[in-house]
């Protein structure tokens, strides 16, 4: 239609513009092969902006009128189709990704466990071609990795019938990124595709692919939802986009091979160029069946709940939307194909996981006490750069989400310092968080029962080595941070933190949740070398 929005339009013009675009959108859903479109509306020279917009609207409506009057069905059918989909009960699609001919696509009802098959006929992929599925309110797609093609069908009616639309080749999005491993519907033009790196385990790139044009538009939404060798993921088995602007993935982590369900914000972060991880739920409690040909979980929504379908036996699980995100088996062993997959349309993905609210407890001020998990915790020694703070607030991690600083936290600032806590009754596990760390900061943690075992969750530019926490050389202007869990096999009563803090103050506090995320990661290690006088180092050794 060629209409574009102008700066300085009146509110009325803007509203009309929206109406025109909506009508234009409906028009695009019509078959493109029919050539009945001849404008029956005239345009006058010298019209106002509003008049021109009304003209475009009328043209678009005229096309709709012609289409339904001359070739297809009454206009009321169009209205009914849209309404039916939005209000209908089923939003979940399913397919057997390696079935031999004839291929089917099915609507799936978790309520009745029924599959309603739709034969796709000659326009489908050849039999046995493994595929990934995706859909929106108006379209269904199948992607074949072996053929590198996406096929598109229009969703016509309910119970659904499909009309074949187009087949589009999918190319590489860059060196080593040749094969997507999961797709989902983003809107009626784009599918979201995650490409894994063929050589670097744990590195993914996520892009939007325009099915009509075949353009992989990395720049529209360059969300890197998983990256970093070692602490990234080997496989993204399933992905969905929600109407609440979240991306939910099922991934297998590199290094640990643990399957996790993760939620990411769908807000492009200018500082990172990536989605922000918000929720991570371990699937260790529902292990895959090792005999399955296609070891995966598929995530989908239905009736405002989030479900996981497990391959091999098609067991269905419901995942709680709020912390601790309890996973419940709802339909055991449907006994379907080992390779059956599920997905839901974005318009139906109306729910997402509740992000755990920030939660923290301040360390006791110098010489003071606090209550922590039924214990009295007292600061029994402090020396050097230890300070009380009367501040609070959130801290945005450079590589992860938000950390919440409680009121009255302790700051380590200056070198060297020692800060000792005594617990009224012994404890095995505590969680602490630190923020605003710089290159050169280091922290050594000891207890009265020996050196503890440290692990890090969402560390940004910091590294755990033994019982020490170091900042990486990339940390500057307070960009280092992380949550750290301290564990001793024998409960400890005295915890001592000593070290050095350069630059900005380093706040430290208790996290209030010790039932920690089940997966811990650490960032890559760097040395603590000062930033000058670089040499190549050579070593040799002797025997004993």
């Amino acid at each position, binding site marked *: 239609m060629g209409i574009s929005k102008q700066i300085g339009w009146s509110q009325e013009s803007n509203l009309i513009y929206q109406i025109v675009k909506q009508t234009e959108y409906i028009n695009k859903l019509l078959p493109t092969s029919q050539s009945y479109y001849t404008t029956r509306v005239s345009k006058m020279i010298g019209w106002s902006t509003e008049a021109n917009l009304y003209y475009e609207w009328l043209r678009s409506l005229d096309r709709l009128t012609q289409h339904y009057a001359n070739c297809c069905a009454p206009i009321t059918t169009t209205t009914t189709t849209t309404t039916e989909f939005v209000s209908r009960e089923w939003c979940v699609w399913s397919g057997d990704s*390696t079935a031999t001919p004839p291929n089917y696509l099915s609507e799936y009802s978790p309520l009745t466990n029924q599959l309603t098959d739709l034969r796709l006929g000659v326009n489908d992929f050849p039999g046995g071609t*493994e595929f990934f599925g995706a859909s929106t309110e108006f379209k269904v797609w199948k992607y074949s*990795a*072996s053929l590198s093609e996406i096929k598109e069908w229009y969703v016509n009616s309910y119970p659904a019938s499909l009309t074949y639309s187009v087949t589009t080749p999918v190319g590489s999005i860059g060196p*080593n990124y*040749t*094969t997507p491993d999961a797709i989902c519907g983003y809107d009626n033009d784009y599918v979201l595709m995650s490409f*894994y*790196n*063929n*050589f*670097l*385990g744990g*590195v993914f790139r996520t892009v939007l692919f325009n099915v009509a044009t075949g353009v992989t538009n990395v720049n529209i939404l360059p969300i890197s939802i998983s990256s970093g*060798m*070692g*602490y990234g993921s*080997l*496989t993204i088995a399933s992905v969905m986009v929600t109407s609440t602007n979240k991306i939910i993935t099922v991934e297998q982590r*590199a*290094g*640990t*091979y643990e399957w996790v369900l993760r939620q990411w914000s769908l807000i492009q972060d200018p500082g990172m160029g990536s989605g922000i991880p918000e929720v991570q739920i371990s699937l260790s409690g529902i292990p895959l069946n*090792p*005999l399955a*040909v296609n*070891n995966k979980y598929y995530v989908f929504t239905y009736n405002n709940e989030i479900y996981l379908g497990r391959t091999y036996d098609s067991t269905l699980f419901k995942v709680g939307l709020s912390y601790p995100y309890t996973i419940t088996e709802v339909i055991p062993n449907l006994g379907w194909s080992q390779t059956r997959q599920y997905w839901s349309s974005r318009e139906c993905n109306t729910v997402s996981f509740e992000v755990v609210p920030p939660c923290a407890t301040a360390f006791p001020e110098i010489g003071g006490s606090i209550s922590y998990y039924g214990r009295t915790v007292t600061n029994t020694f402090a020396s050097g750069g230890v300070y009380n703070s009367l501040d609070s607030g959130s801290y945005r991690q450079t590589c992860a989400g938000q950390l919440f600083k409680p009121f009255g936290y302790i700051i380590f600032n200056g070198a060297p310092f020692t800060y000792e806590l005594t617990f009224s009754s012994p404890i095995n596990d505590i969680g602490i968080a630190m923020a605003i760390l710089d290159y050169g900061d280091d922290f050594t943690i000891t207890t009265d029962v020996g050196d503890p*075992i*440290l*692990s*890090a969750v969402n560390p940004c530019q910091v590294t*755990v*080595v*033994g019982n020490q926490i170091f900042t990486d*050389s*990339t940390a500057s202007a307070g960009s280092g941070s992380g949550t750290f869990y301290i564990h001793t096999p024998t409960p400890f009563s005295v915890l001592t933190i000593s070290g050095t803090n350069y630059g900005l103050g380093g706040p430290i506090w208790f996290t209030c949740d010790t039932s920690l995320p089940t*997966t*811990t*990661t*650490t*960032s*890559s*290690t*760097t*040395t603590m*070398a*000062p930033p*000058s*006088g*670089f*040499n*190549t*180092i*050579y*070593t*040799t*050794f*002797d*025997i*004993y």
Partner: protein
Amino acid sequence: MENNFEDIKLKIMELSETTPNINSISYGFKFVNGQQTNELSIMYGVEKKKPLSELTPDEVFPSTIDVNGKTIKTDVHEVGSMQLLACNPYCGQIAGPNSAANRAYTRPLKGGLSITSTNTISTVGTLGFIAVHTETQALVGVTNNHVLIQDSFYTSDRDLSGIIQNEYNPPNIVYQDGESGVIPPSNFRVGQSVRYVPLSRNGRNFVDAAMFSLESEDVDINTSYQTVGFSYTQPLPFATSSEINNLLITNPMLYASGRTTGPKGGAGCPMRIFSLFSTTVLTYKLQGVPTYCYFLDQLTFVKPENDPSLSILCAKPVWFGDSGSALIADFNGVRKIIGLVFAGGPAGGEFYYGYANRIDHVASDLGIEAWDGTAKNYIDPGSIIYKTTINGSSNKTLSCEGKIYWQVGLTTLSSPC
């Protein structure tokens, strides 16, 4: 014949550096209509085969190649054409019950066990085998660079204003098992990385290999030369260069035992050599940035469905975590180490090809020899000393006061020779 092999190897190196749009070049049996023939060929590995009509003249590979007067046919091999087949599901299973022993905390040590290190704590690989450091006659563990070393590039390839890393300070401790993802308790320590073969960003690389010290209490000279999951109990010598060059002709049964896919090889899970002298490109982290590295003269191995025919291949001859495992061949009842597994060839989300460094390159580049099971020395980690040279260097070693020092990264320390 040996000279001919060297000529073929040199020709493959030449072709790999001058042929665009290929994934690899190697030497193996030619395939016709999907069936393996008995004719050896130079094999171009491409992402997707195209009809001649769609190729520009520059993209058409020659049908034959002259190698020092001898004509060798070529073959074009499509990586992405494999299908997932109903192969033995327990053979190559990812972290399944078959490989549980590989991931378990195990003393005394054996080849095939999972390991990690302080500097690579969030990843895990495999202890390939225990060998002898020739100069000191000390026992050492052998695995890949990328299993233990955070950045194995020559310091001359590094940016002096970038991340400054080395494997000396803090000490890069090696742990077994390597499964936790965090620094484990002290009883998991089995040694410390002492040498690696630096990688070159622009040059030719032959091995991805590192060695680490061992403690005598973790080694049993009667069993530690064995490999997890195999009943074969004898020490494993290294295959000679001649035995490796003739692998396509002798076509021995192969064995490997990695952290993730466990023991493979033998009648229930056969593995064979697919091609020799293979070239491939892999990415390694150079100061945190994924960087291409060019590898030459590699072994390519596969899991055939209908052994010994290679016409139909099974997935997962190797998987993430198997890096560093030994590739072993059975020469008429005597098993020998022929390679160090370090990479997989991907196709549609699966690996169908495993890549291994030749053991003759590993031995010469690291300065090691096979362990015959006799008593040997042990490296004293407290004896490790260092010397420095100004800025980056492309020298793998430094000779100083009668001792040979090995490059282990960048530092701000200063101790010139």
